């Protein structure tokens, strides 16, 4: 019986010690608790290094493909749609430039439409080529990794019959074709050309 009672006493002491420890710890935590600065918050001196625009030989791919992939011949009285398909090699893209040369006597450029809702396109019609700037909207926080992704649709109106080329060019004058990553790295994708017959 005595043994049982001393066990009870030890149990009660332990219980009191633990509770005292909780209460003490709780008071300490409450008194000292301070809002921690958000870990991702930018600070005035946070060292941020912008990587220089690295130009790599070829990384990723950009291809012109016909909207109706099984056809390469089209009647002269119908507009044709050419899509731009992109592969960014797992890189997150925040903007791109595209230069496409074509025969302006054979086709009238009608319009370009972004197939990505979070990218805007700015079109520039030059003498013998088209230049586009694609910019990711500020609101979009989702990564934009292109994996055979159709990014842009172009509509042309044929003006005459014949066989013609649409060619993605790496550079014409001051206009370039490239992807810009979220780290402001410049990627030069592999480019293709597309043959179209108008009858």
């Amino acid at each position, binding site marked *: 019986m005595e043994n049982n009672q001393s066990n009870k006493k030890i149990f009660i002491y332990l219980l009191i010690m633990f509770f005292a420890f909780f209460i003490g710890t709780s008071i*300490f935590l409450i008194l000292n608790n301070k809002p921690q600065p958000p870990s991702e918050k930018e600070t*005035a*001196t946070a060292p941020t290094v*912008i990587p220089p625009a690295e130009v790599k030989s070829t990384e990723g791919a950009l291809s012109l493909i016909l909207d109706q992939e099984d056809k390469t011949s089209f009647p002269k009285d119908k507009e044709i749609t050419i899509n731009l398909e992109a592969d960014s090699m797992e890189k997150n893209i925040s903007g791109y430039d595209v230069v496409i040369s074509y025969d302006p006597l054979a086709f009238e450029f009608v319009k370009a439409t972004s197939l990505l809702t979070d990218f805007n396109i*700015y079109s520039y019609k030059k003498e013998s080529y088209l230049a586009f700037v694609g910019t990711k909207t500020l609101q979009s926080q989702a990564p934009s990794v292109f994996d055979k992704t159709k990014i842009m649709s172009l509509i042309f109106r044929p003006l005459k019959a014949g066989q013609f080329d649409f060619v993605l060019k790496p550079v014409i004058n001051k206009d*370039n074709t490239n992807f810009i990553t979220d780290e402001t790295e410049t990627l030069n994708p592999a480019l293709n050309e597309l043959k179209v017959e108008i009858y």
Partner: protein
Amino acid sequence: MRFGEVVIINKSMKKIKLFVIAVVIIAGSLFMWQYVNNFLSKSRAAVDRVDLTLSPKSETLKVGEEKTIVLLIKPQLVDGDKKISGIDLTIATEGNISILGLTPPAPFPLGSNTNLKGAQLINDVKEKQARIAYVYTNPSNELSSVLQIQLRIKGTAPGSGKLVINKEKTEIAGIAIGNIFELGLVDETSYSVSGQAGPSVTLQISPKTTQKEVGEAFPLTFQIVNTPEGKGISAFTINLSYDKDLLEIISVGDPIDAVTNGDKDKFTQGKKEINQNKGEIILSYLSTVAQDQLPKKPKIEIQVKGKKTGTGEFKIVSAQVTGNISENEYQTSIENASYDIVSDGGPTNTPVPTGGTDGNVKLNLKLKFQGILGKPADALNKMAVKIKLLNELTETATDYKSADFTADDKGVWSGNTSFNIDVNAKYILYVKGPYHIQKKICDEKPIETADGTYSCIKGNISLKKGYNDVFDLTGIILLVGDLPDQNGAVDAYDISLVRNNLGKTDETSVANSDVNRDGIVDTQDYSSIIAALSIKQDEE
């Protein structure tokens, strides 16, 4: 109670005990874990704390009265290692006081670290809240441990008010764990604002604006005006500041009373200190004549001379004026003056053109850049602008000359350069800023109705040997868009550079993509560059 029941109760008690012990151990372990994680493992961070103290903590102001409050930023352990490299501080007012301004952080005590160099990224003062962001560019061993900021506050209505540092929006960076100090003691203040506004006087520097040539001497007048009817000035102490690089003080006269344009003998000099190295003048005078004879409009003439081209402000930094009024001290309102020192058009005492001195034709240009409406912080108030001339007749262009331009309070950028050219021809001027699309300018005073719409074909600019009149090109705006490294076009790289740096204030990001020079890469920069896509390429 039977034996069997006792055994069952004992067993139940044991289970309850075990359960309680288990709960206690688990809860204890959780508390221990949190304790160790939050405090013991960060014990060093806890040491890296800074106290933000305000002085005085309590004060009585009159309505309309201004006071200077000193904010000290001080690591809790000033052991020589704890240095401050940058601050981002937001302070607000509650009640009947407003914030008029705050100075950039300076080492404490003042003058203790003259090597300290930094850039003010933000100094945004609103009536009820002010924010200042400042970073130092010195290596860590040259930084200061203790900084001070002076806040100017004003009582707005009878009652009380206080200054509150916003802890959530305040960060102090430096040599600390994680480069950020924890905030230790953060002071609040309590001020009472009493009664109606007391008698006031106006302290002014005139003329309010002056344009003079380099080397030309001209007067600036300090004067106390709007003295209440029947009252006079018994003493005044003023602290004036000016840009020591632009102005030289030739002489500071003795005060007279503007009412009589004389009465020099009414004033007794207390202090007259002219510090040309600091750009500071301290004047203190006392009038010991009878109360009804006190001067009403003390006036002091200061002769100055332009040293080099640029704009600046001649400022009354602080003032104390007393008189024969029951309150003894007048409340003061201040009117400062600005000056614009321009080239003198002659071969002597001229500024050294940053774009080269070898040309037979010297050009002074004034430019406006998209998105810059005022004077950027000193560290950001310089842009290297490329300039070239195209001979309309021969269609030959000069090489680009790069010239440093600086802005005045209105966001007008001034700079100069020189070219070796045939002065009998007409020219087209090409100007390209460091973040900008090249602008082709054919007229000596071009204008446009909407930003960036000016365009021209044929050059109509005539130049003469030596110094030409200032080319005021502020009627047009130079659009941003072509960011470093420039390639002559606005493209996805330029736009992505701004987008990817949004919100950043570090030196590299600001140097590369803060096109409006406000110290932060933000949506204004992004909007400006998107707008420039309408032009896209340098004008040729």
